[in-house]
């Protein structure tokens, strides 16, 4: 049996890199937010310290096996999603399994974690958690539709469902899909705002309403695993969007620049907006993003 050691290297290092980048982005976000809020802010390593601290909590409390496995579901989805996305263009190491799945597959595997987390939160028996899950799933239906519209527009335009093929299309700066299909990009980026869960779409965890919602019974190692998963998943989503719209990246510096710029969109939006109520958020996604998505498809079809 011949093992491609380079891909094994990729399999091992990709989640680690994703975690480090994601966690640093998280810390930087807090710092940038702090600066806008007229204060100094925590060090960029703050999120990492938080995660280490949570792992080092002595006791952890669980209400049953689904709560125990909920964070595992989440992180499995994050890492698997990452594996099926080409992180670096044309790289042997960081392509991982991206030839074996396509966009539709990615859409579904991304939900895997939410479903697992929802089950875990459900088992805790906390009404706040259940309300949070109910809000989260409702909002998910909201933003998935414009996202799919945008994906369908792109898939139709380029006659492929594979991310690798989409990357191959965007060879030069002018070929980026953001320029080739701007309407799809608008729909996609608006859906992306919802996907990232920053304000105004943070109704799921809304502390002032439902005391942080689904994770309200998770602490210690469970919360740590969830935060780890969140860091990786953030990075995975950023890479996915970079690959789809911004032409991917052929080295790490480009990747960092592109993903960071992309990441700043939801972060900066979040700083200046209060949160929507659930139905307002759903209606928002079904208004303009939907229109843009439909227009994007019409442009491609006609």
């Amino acid at each position, binding site marked *: 049996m011949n093992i491609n050691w380079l891909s094994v290297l990729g399999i091992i290092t990709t989640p680690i890199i994703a975690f480090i980048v994601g966690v640093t982005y998280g810390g930087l976000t807090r710092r940038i937010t702090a600066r806008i809020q007229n204060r100094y802010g925590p060090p960029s390593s703050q999120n990492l310290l938080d995660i280490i601290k949570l792992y080092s909590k002595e006791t952890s409390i*669980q209400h*049953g096996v689904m709560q125990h496995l909920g964070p595992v579901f989440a992180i499995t989805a994050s890492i698997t999603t990452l594996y099926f996305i080409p992180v670096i263009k044309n790289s042997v190491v960081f392509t991982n399994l991206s030839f074996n799945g396509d966009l539709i597959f990615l859409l579904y595997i991304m939900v895997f974690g939410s479903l697992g987390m929802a089950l875990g939160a459900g088992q805790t028996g906390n009404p706040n958690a259940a309300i949070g899950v109910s809000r989260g799933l409702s909002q*998910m239906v909201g933003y998935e*539709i414009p996202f*799919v519209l945008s994906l369908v527009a792109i898939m139709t335009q380029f006659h492929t469902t594979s991310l690798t093929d989409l990357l191959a299309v965007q060879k030069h700066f002018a070929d980026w899909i953001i320029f080739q299909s701007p309407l799809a990009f608008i729909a996609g980026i608006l859906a992306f705002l919802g996907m990232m869960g920053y304000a105004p779409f943070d109704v799921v965890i809304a502390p002032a309403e439902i005391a942080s919602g689904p994770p309200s019974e998770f602490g210690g190692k469970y919360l740590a695993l969830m935060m780890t998963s969140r860091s990786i998943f953030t990075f995975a989503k950023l890479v996915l969007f970079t690959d789809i719209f911004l032409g991917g990246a052929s080295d790490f510096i480009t990747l960092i620049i592109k993903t960071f710029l992309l990441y700043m969109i939801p972060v900066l939006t979040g700083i200046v907006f209060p949160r929507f109520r659930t139905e307002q958020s759903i209606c928002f996604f079904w208004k303009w993003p939907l229109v843009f998505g439909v227009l994007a498809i019409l442009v491609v079809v006609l």
Partner: protein
Amino acid sequence: MISIPYILLIAFAGALLSFVIHHIAPKLRTPVALLTTVLLLYFVWALPANSLINIKIGDFILTWGTTAYGQLFGMLVAVLGFFTVLYSTDFMASKERLGYFYMNFLFVIGGMLGIVYSQDFISLFFFWEIMTWSSFMLVIYCCKDAQSIGLKYFVFSAIGAYSILIGIVLLYSSMGTLQFKNIFGHINEISTGIKISVIILMIIGFGVKSALMPLHVWAPDAYAVSPSPFTALFSGALSKMGIFGIGLVLFKLAAHTGFYSYVQYTLAWIGGITALLATFYAIAQTDAKKLLAYSSIGQLGYIIVGLAIGTPLSIAAALFLAILHAIFKSMLFMATGAVYMRTGTTNMTEVSGLIRKMPISFVTALFGIITVAGVPPLGGFAAKWMLYESLIQSGHYFLVIVIFAASTAAFLYLFRYIFSLFLGQEEKEWENVKEVPWTMQIPMILMTIFVLVIGVFPGLLLDPISSAMQYLNVKPFDYQMSVLFNNWGGKVDMQIVVRSIAAVFILLGIFITIKGYRNTRYVTTKDIHTSGEIPTENENLTYAVDFYKPFERSIAPLLKASIDKVYTLTGDIFEQAFDYLRYVYTGNGQTYAMYVVLFLAILLLFSELIFGIIL
């Protein structure tokens, strides 16, 4: 020895025997029924591929034979039949009139087997009627309000049956034969008007059973009141007979006509809207069985869409989903039945927190919902994937959005289903609930394993499907044992997907279990963060009432504005008609027969008029 008449004989003889033996030796009736299904399973499995039997009755020749297409559904019926009867042994143990129950149950199975092996329209109709009648008997088996619901089911079935009958009559009058082999492929010999009429009538007829949207009204209630083992069969196999018929009509009759694309287009949109609306309705349900019933309607909508699109991949997706839906919906209905057996209710606002009491049922339900949701790595994903790919690649851009919206919204009701029944607060009133007996566990476990295996090796199911598609004259499509391909060169390797998911999941599962194992303590669901307060005994901490209120509110304009009113109106008209009829006829046995005759007369009259104009 192993041939189709024997199969039917076994089914109907077993049915009668279990009825008779109920009065002689009640203890034996269940073994008899079980033995019948075992025999059926063996016979269907061992049935040779080319068996063909002609029986001459008067002028008509009845033809029974095996086709790959029929065998696909036949196997499904036999397997589900065995599982549901096995499940019934303990589930129904404490019920009354079991002879009646098993007789009708086996009649339904026999009828369905007859349908799939029929090679002419007469026997198809004959067995269709057997299936309909005996399933009607089972719908009204259980409780008091079942009567009116049964009536609703019966009326719709009658509409369906007579639509089919008129279609058959039209065919016979214009072609002079009812043999499949004489009709299929020769449809263009008759005039366009009759062709259209026949196809529309047949689709209406079969659409009733597969709960196509305007004709679905009977389904939620009928599913909800019928006893759980039968609901599993009802939603799993019986509704697939409609799909079976629609498949025949589409690919054997309509495919050769000039207006095929219109039929496809209309049917696809009807299917898509069925899927979306049924999903929205399912979200608003509070009864678990009704929720699953609407879910079934939605899933059947996907199947119809797949069939109607008509590309090889989409047909494969539809048939794949048809088989899979039978399995996972049976799993869910069985899990619900298990909950019902132990708690006496399927109201999701009452039951909660059964996970630790009924782990097997929970795992079944969990795998069921993951399959319905189409999340990898279970079988549902392959079906959803093929469906989307085919939709996108055949240019149905907006249909794919409708389907995707329905499919995403399905997460909502699925989570609500499993959360309300199994997760959440472990309440005192369900303290003494136990897991169901092993006879009920076995079918659930076997089907769970099935969806898991199909998830890794969709090819196992795609093999018979591709041969069935060959019978339907559809071009073959590309697949491997565990790799799916689309037309644009995209692929999903399920083995790699499953391997990576399993590896990460197991690795981190072990990690989180071992890490701080000693200091991880289990606490009850009463020990939760309630803002520092201590809840009193009677306070309800389970969030179950109106679970998706915000979502319902945001889709309310969509439902309220147009379709809801039409349905209410239609419903009202029907209800009033029933009421009126109930006043006229006093409700004894004759009533229904009279009613049906009346309906038949009206239908004939109308079709005469319509067809007269067309012709």
